C-alpha cells in the first residue's frame, strides 16, 4: 500500500477510502461481469487494525510474565512481599491524567486537520501529554532509586526481581508510546497527520494506563 505510506492523503472527513487497494472486505465478492459501482466496500486503515494486533502481542507478553510470577510465588519459600514505594501512586495519577489530556486534544486536532483553524494550536495538549509521560518514566526511576536505597536490588529476592522486571518492561513500552506521540506531533506540524495514526497512538497510550494499573495490582496483592 505504498500510496498511503509514502505520502498519506490529508484527512477529509470520515468517508472511506475508495478506488484503492485494501478494500477486499470480508465477504464482498465481485461477481464475474458484475458492475463494480455496486460493490460497497470498506476496510479499516491498516494502522487501526495493526494497533489491536500489537496490543494483543503486548498482552500475551505480560500474560507470560504474570504466569511466571504466579508460579514463582507459589513455588518458593523465599518470597518476601515488598512494600511498593508510595511514589508509584503519584506516577499512576500522572499517567491517568496524561490519557485525559490526550483525549482532550483529539477532536480539536481532527477539526484542525479538517481545515478548521481555532485560536490556539491543538498540538498544545500533545506536548502536555508528552511531558506527563516523561514525568511518569522519571517517577518510575525515582521508585527504583528508593528501593535501591532500601538495599532492594533485582537479585535481592524474587519479588524485587519481578518488580524491576515488570516495571522496566512497562516503562520501555511507555517510552515506545512517547515515540508514537513525537511521531504524531511531527506529522501534525507537517500537516500530514492521518486520523488513524492519532487514533492508534491514543489507543496504545490508554492501554499503557490499563497495563500499569494491572501491574500495580499484581505487584501489590499477595497471591
Amino acid at each position, binding site marked *: 500500500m505504498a*500510496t498511503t505510506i509514502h505520502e498519506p492523503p490529508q484527512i477529509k472527513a470520515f468517508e472511506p477510502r475508495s478506488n484503492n*487497494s485494501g478494500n477486499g472486505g470480508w465477504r464482498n465478492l*465481485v461477481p*464475474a461481469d458484475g458492475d463494480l459501482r455496486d460493490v460497497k466496500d470498506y476496510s479499516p486503515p*491498516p494502522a487501526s487494525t495493526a494497533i489491536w*494486533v500489537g496490543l494483543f502481542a503486548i498482552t500475551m*507478553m505480560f500474560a507470560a510474565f504474570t504466569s511466571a510470577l504466579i508460579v514463582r510465588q507459589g513455588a518458593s519459600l523465599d518470597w518476601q512481599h515488598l512494600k511498593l514505594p508510595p511514589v508509584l501512586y503519584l506516577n499512576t495519577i500522572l499517567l491517568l491524567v496524561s490519557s485525559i489530556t490526550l483525549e482532550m486534544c483529539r477532536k480539536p486536532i481532527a477539526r484542525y486537520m479538517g481545515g478548521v483553524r481555532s485560536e490556539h494550536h491543538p498540538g498544545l495538549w500533545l506536548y502536555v501529554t508528552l511531558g506527563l509521560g516523561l514525568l511518569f518514566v522519571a517517577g518510575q526511576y525515582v521508585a527504583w532509586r528508593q528501593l535501591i536505597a532500601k538495599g532492594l536490588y*533485582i537479585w535481592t529476592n524474587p519479588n524485587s526481581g519481578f518488580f524491576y522486571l515488570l516495571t522496566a518492561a512497562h516503562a520501555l513500552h511507555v517510552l515506545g508510546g512517547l515515540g508514537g506521540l513525537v511521531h504524531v506531533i511531527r506529522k501534525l506540524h507537517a500537516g500530514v497527520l492521518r486520523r488513524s495514526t492519532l487514533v492508534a497512538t491514543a489507543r496504545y497510550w490508554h492501554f499503557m494506563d490499563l497495563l500499569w494499573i494491572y501491574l500495580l495490582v499484581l505487584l501489590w496483592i499477595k497471591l
Partner: protein
Amino acid sequence: MHDMSSHAAHHAPPTGFLRKHVFSLDHKVIGLQYYGLALAAVIVGMVLSWVMRIHLGWTNVAIPGLQFLSKNGAPGGVMTPEYYLQLMTMHGTIMVFFVLTTAPFAAFGNYFLPIQVGAEDMPFPHFNMMSFWVTFVAFLTLCAAFFVSDGPPLSGWTAYAPLSAVGSVAGPGQGTGQVLWAAAIGIFCIGQLLGSLNFITTTLDMRVKGLSLMRLPLSAWAWFITSCMGLTAFAVLLPAGVMLILDHVAGTSFFVPSNLVINDQLQPHSGGSTLLWQHLFWFFGHPEVYIAIVPGMGIVSHVLITNMRRPMLSHRTLIYSMGALAVLSYMVYGHHMFVSGMNPASSLAFSFPTLIITIPSTIVVLIWIGSLYGSRLRINSASLFSLGFISMFVSGGVSGFFLAQPSVDIMLHATYFVVGHFHLVMAVAAIFGIFAGTYFWFPKMTGRMMNESLGKVHFWLTFIGAYCIFMPFHYLGLAGNVRRYQGFVDDYLQPLIPLHKFITVAAIATGIVQFIFLYNLIHSRFWGEKAPLNPWEATSLEWSTPSSPPPFDNFGGQHPVVYHDPYQYGVEAADGKDYVMQTSPEQVKGGHDEA
C-alpha cells in the same frame, strides 16, 4: 482493471544502492533477503549435522581439520563431548529458528502474500525492513557464540534450566555462550513479531476489490494463520529469554532453585522454578512446530492444485483444519513434559488434545489425497516435492500417535524416536515445502526457469535419502537409544552402532545432493531460460503481474479486481484454456465459485 496512474505517480521506486538492495522497503527484496539468510543458515546447520553424524558413527576418531574449527572443542581433531553438544545446540537452534521459520514463512510470505492479496506492498514497510535486519542481527549474535572463549552453549535448543541458567560452572559454553544464545532468541522474537504484525494487517486490510477472505489462495491463508501463531508464541518466548538472561547477568533466580551443588560449589541462587522454563518454552515450542509446517502445507496445496489442474475437494475445510491445528497447538504443548515431573494428571490432560490434533492433520492429508483422485496431475519438480511432502508428513505424523500417549512416552521420551518424528514431520517436510515453493515460484521471482532435469535428480536423491536417514531413527528409538548422546557406552546400545554408521553415510550423501539444488538455483538465476509470465498456467494474483519479477509496485500502477475464487482449474474457459485467472471478468462454465 482500474488505472491507478494517479496513485502510481506517488511512489517512485527507490534510487540508490542501499535503499534498493540493503535497507529496502520493498517486500519482494525483503523476501529474497530472508531466503538468502535461510540459505546461509541451512548450509551452516547441515555442515554441523555432518560433523555430528561422523562423530556418532565413529566416536573418538580424529576428524581431520576439525581442530581448526575449535582448538579446545576438538583437540587434534578428536571431538570432545562438550563440543558435540555445542554443535548439536547450534544445529537445532539455527535450523528451527533461522531456516524452518524464516524460509517458508518469512521469505515466501514476504514475497508473495502482498502480491496474492493484490497489494503494492505491506502496510508498514519500515517495520518489514526492521523485521529482517533484526532477524539478521539475531543470527549474527547466535553465530558469535562460536567465537567466544568457551564456545556455544551445550544445553540443546530447548535450553532447559537450571543447566542453562547457572553459568559456566555447569559446563563449557554455559556462560557467555548461553547468554548470547538467549539474546539471539530474544532479538529473533522481536523480528518475527514485527513480521507477524505486517502479515496480519496485510491479509485483513490490503486485499483488493472483490478479494474476500475466502477468495485468498491457500498459501496466503497458511501465512496468515502462521503469523497469528507467531504473534502469540514469540510474545511468550521473549519474556522467557529475558528472564534467562537476568538469571545469568543480574543474579536473579527465576529458573534456578535453592541449594544446587555444582562441581562441589553451593550455588548462590534460591527458590526458582525449573518447570517454569519448560512451561514457557514449550508454550512457544509446540506452536513453533506448526509455525514451521503450516506454511509448507499452504505452499504445497497451492502448488499441487496448480499441477492437479483442479481445486481441492474443499477450500474451506483445508483452511479450517489449518486453523484448528493453530488453535490446538497451544493446548498440547505439555506432551513434551510427560515425564518431566509435572503432575501425572496433567500429563493425561495434555495427552487428549494431543491425540485429537491428529484429526485436523488427518483431514488435511485426506483432502490432499482425495483431491488427487480424478485429477490431471502434472509431474514436475515442484509437484514432485509437494507429493513428497505429503508422504513425509504422513510418515512423520503417524509416530505422533506414540508420543501423544504418556504411557508409551515412558519408553520413547528423549529417544531417537522423538528425533526421527520431528525431523520427518517438521524438518524434512517443511524443507520439501521450501523446495516445492522454490521450483514453483522461481520463474516469478527471477524471470527465469529452473532446470527441470536437475530438479528431478535433486528430488529423487533427496526423497530416498531423507527416508534412509530418518526412518532408522525410529528403530533406534524403539530400541531405547537415548538422544543427545555423543557416544554410546551403554551395553544395550552397542548393537545399534552399525545403524548409526548407516545413517551417517546416508546423511552425508543426501547432504551432498543438496549442492545440485544450490547449483541449479545459482545457475538458473543468471543463465536459466527466460520464463513466460505464467509458466504453470496458474490462476492466482501473483501470475497476473505485468512482469517477472514483478515491478516495484507489483501491478504496474494498476490495482487488480478479483472476480473468482482462487482456483478456477479444470473449467472450459475462452480459447480452450482449462483455467481462468482470478482477475479475469469472464464467466466460467463449470466454475468453482462458492459465491
